[in-house]
């Protein structure tokens, strides 16, 4: 594999990692607060459809982005009501919302546009366009670094950079702020938070809403950044992969970045069977390559990557005890 091809694969890796990263960080907030969220997938799907439809109707991707966040937040609120207020089973609530999203997105898209459940193709201001970072063209000629900067780092859409910035931001929020301390505490031992005079319910809702916003970004990226329009089931299990990445990352922001980059890398090379064949000399069928990220997901979830200790109060509704 030559350097240029390698950079192409990295560039694709970054593009494909972004929805995973945003969804993974989304899950991080919720699960750190003790609310398991298997419904990342559904929220992304809802957001992707909302962004696709509203961007097309208004011609503005920014309004589409807001719609995506709103769509995702709607699902987040339902999950919050079910698992926080009504102390329901968090897994069941998440699974149910995924089913709802899978059906309702196609239903809405079909009734709005009548194109078999997809939204019309987007172009121009209705989609996120690549941003060329400062100096990208100027230093493109510098050996090694130049092409890396201009090919891999520069030239992505807005939400890719948002995703990358969310990593240090999330780390800072989690470990350097009062909110982060309380968030981590409520996922470990909500009684400690409650007896300290802080509302467990409010903290958990806040976390679930942040999850909703980030899933909104992830979904919007799918239909307005990565692709140009919403298609049926377009998230294709990315919400679950993000969940696996979250476990792989042991619920830590920087690890989330590395984990999702790894999954993104597998998705990227699956798109380039020619590169693999040239590199290892064996032709692997494309379906097998496509399956790679999912196989990795199973391996991660089977616990083969070492012991991952989830937040101790995760999945448990908080009930005051005597």
């Amino acid at each position, binding site marked *: 594999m030559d350097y240029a091809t390698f950079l192409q694969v990295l560039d694709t890796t970054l593009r494909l990692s972004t929805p995973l990263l945003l969804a993974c960080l989304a899950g991080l907030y919720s699960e750190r607060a003790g609310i398991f969220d298997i419904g990342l997938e559904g929220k992304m799907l809802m957001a992707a459809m909302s962004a696709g439809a509203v961007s097309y109707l208004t011609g503005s991707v920014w309004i589409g982005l807001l719609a995506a966040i709103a769509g995702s937040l709607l699902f987040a609120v339902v999950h919050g009501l079910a698992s926080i207020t009504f102390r329901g089973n968090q897994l069941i609530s998440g699974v149910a919302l995924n089913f709802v999203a899978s059906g309702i997105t196609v239903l809405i898209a079909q009734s709005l546009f009548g194109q078999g459940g997809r939204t019309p193709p987007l172009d121009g201001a209705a989609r996120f366009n690549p941003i060329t970072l400062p100096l990208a063209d100027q230093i493109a000629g510098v050996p090694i670094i130049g092409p890396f900067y201009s090919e891999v780092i520069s030239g992505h859409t807005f939400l890719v950079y948002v995703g990358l910035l969310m990593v240090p931001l999330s780390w800072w929020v989690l*470990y*350097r*702020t*009062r*909110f*982060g*301390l*309380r968030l*981590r*505490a409520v996922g*470990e*031992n909500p*009684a*400690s*938070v*409650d*007896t*300290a*005079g*802080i509302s467990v319910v409010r903290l958990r809702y806040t976390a679930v809403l942040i999850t909703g916003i980030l899933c909104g970004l992830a979904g919007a990226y799918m239909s307005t950044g990565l692709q140009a329009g919403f298609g049926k089931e377009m998230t294709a299990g990315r919400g679950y992969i993000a969940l696996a990445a979250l476990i792989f990352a042991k619920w830590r922001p920087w690890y989330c970045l590395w984990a999702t980059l790894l999954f993104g890398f597998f998705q990227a090379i699956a798109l380039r069977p020619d590169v693999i064949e040239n590199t290892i000399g064996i032709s692997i069928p494309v379906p097998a390559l496509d399956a790679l990220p999912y196989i990795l997901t199973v391996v991660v979830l089977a616990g083969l990557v070492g012991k991952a200790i989830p937040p*101790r109060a995760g999945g448990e509704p908080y009930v*005051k005890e*005597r």
Partner: protein
Amino acid sequence: MTADVGGGRPAAAAPSSSPFAIELKGISKSFGPVQANKDVNIAVPKGTIHGIIGENGAGKSTLMSILYGFYKADAGEIFVNGKLTAIPDSQSAIRAGIGMVFQHFKLVQNFTVLENVVLGAEDGALLRPSLAKARKTLQDLAQEYELDVDPDALVEDLSVGHQQRVEILKALYRQAEILILDEPTGVLTPAEADHLFRILKGLRDQGKTVILITHKLREIMEATDNVSVMRRGTMVGTVKTAQTSPEELAELMVGRKVLLEVEKQPAHPGKVVLSVQDLRVMDEIGVERLKGVSFEIRAGEILGIAGVAGNGQSELLAALGGIQPATGTVMMNGAALPLSGHDANGRTRREAGIAHVPEDRQMLGLIMDFTAWENTAFGYHNEPKYQKNALLMDNDAIRSDTERKMATFDVRPPIPTLAAKNFSGGNQQKIVVAREIESDPDLLLVGQPTRGVDIGAIEFIHKQIVALRDAGKAILLVSVELDEIMSLSDRIAVMFDGRLMGFRDPETTNERELGLLMAGVSGDAA
């Protein structure tokens, strides 16, 4: 009130004319049909240690939870420093200068001490300044009150005694003037408990008010200035500790005369029933929990194993009960017991004549959602008397048998069809004890027989154990309650760090000597 110790604390804690730190007037609280508090009145003078004593379920914890804003009272008023104060939530209680140390600590295990102290009392949106300030304050508090804890240690690495100090530090960091401790010594060694009482007295001498909730009479006598007694949700009286006696308090608690000392005749040990040689247990992560334990128990004898929880007593019971694999030699009535593998299980133990009242009755002794009669049959469900024919069990026989056992062991209410979880702790324990003792074993293994059991039931269970001994059976008693070990045992062995530190005669030893052995000091046998 004495000098304003901390300076610059919230207005609620400012000096005032009232001689009382806390006054509760007419507090009532119901949970469904259960009235936990009935028109409770109490006045706690400032700068004193005030004990609240009562049996399990007497309403002590409910009362204090109301004071800490965990529950809302149905009726009644709370006065803090003479001022009517509404306490709708814990935040209000903290603002009013009330701090609480719960029986089950409310700490985040994988946080540092500092983070736990700061949680909820941060000074701003950023953590660093808060942590730095807390570090300074903790140093001051540590010096002032003998409350040393490493601020950077993770809570999960601390001993229980140190975790409790973190809870006290949390309250003091929030400038609590009134400190409530709920059953604080349940998990402490005698030495740790003494240290705790020193801390509490230090706090009192600095003008703080301490409320100590306990069911242990000895602690009330040792540590408090005044004591209020609760019984079935009502306050039955408040007395000066110096002017009362344990006997009087026990009578107030239970409502009748109670024998605090177990009445028993001298033991007449017979032949050796159980002989244990070099018993070792390795836990699942490869740590040796039992490091070569040897002893014998004779017929008609109670061997008490004392020790702080977690020193291998649980493993000893589990190994003998066939629950946990072990190595070594155990002879029961002259026959070797299998210690590992397929044959080491509760059923073969029962067949060998061993009955087991496990330490954790709710985990191992009962299935909480099952009825009393079903629980009575567990382990003994294969007995011929419970079979109708080759296929079916005779449930009627089990039910009538359960009724009989419930009558003999005074289980209340005596309803076999009630689920185990609907009985009080003491009655749950009686169901387990009835099942095991009535199986007519040669050896009874009994762990923490009176944990979470009220005084009346304790007296009853103790009598049953002694009666079994007098019937010529061997009994291995494991308990973290030193009083219980001292009053029941015919011989006492102290366990520390997986070893027996030595055997003592309860007639000639004392709490101090046992306490030292429990702390691993001056053992005379490995």
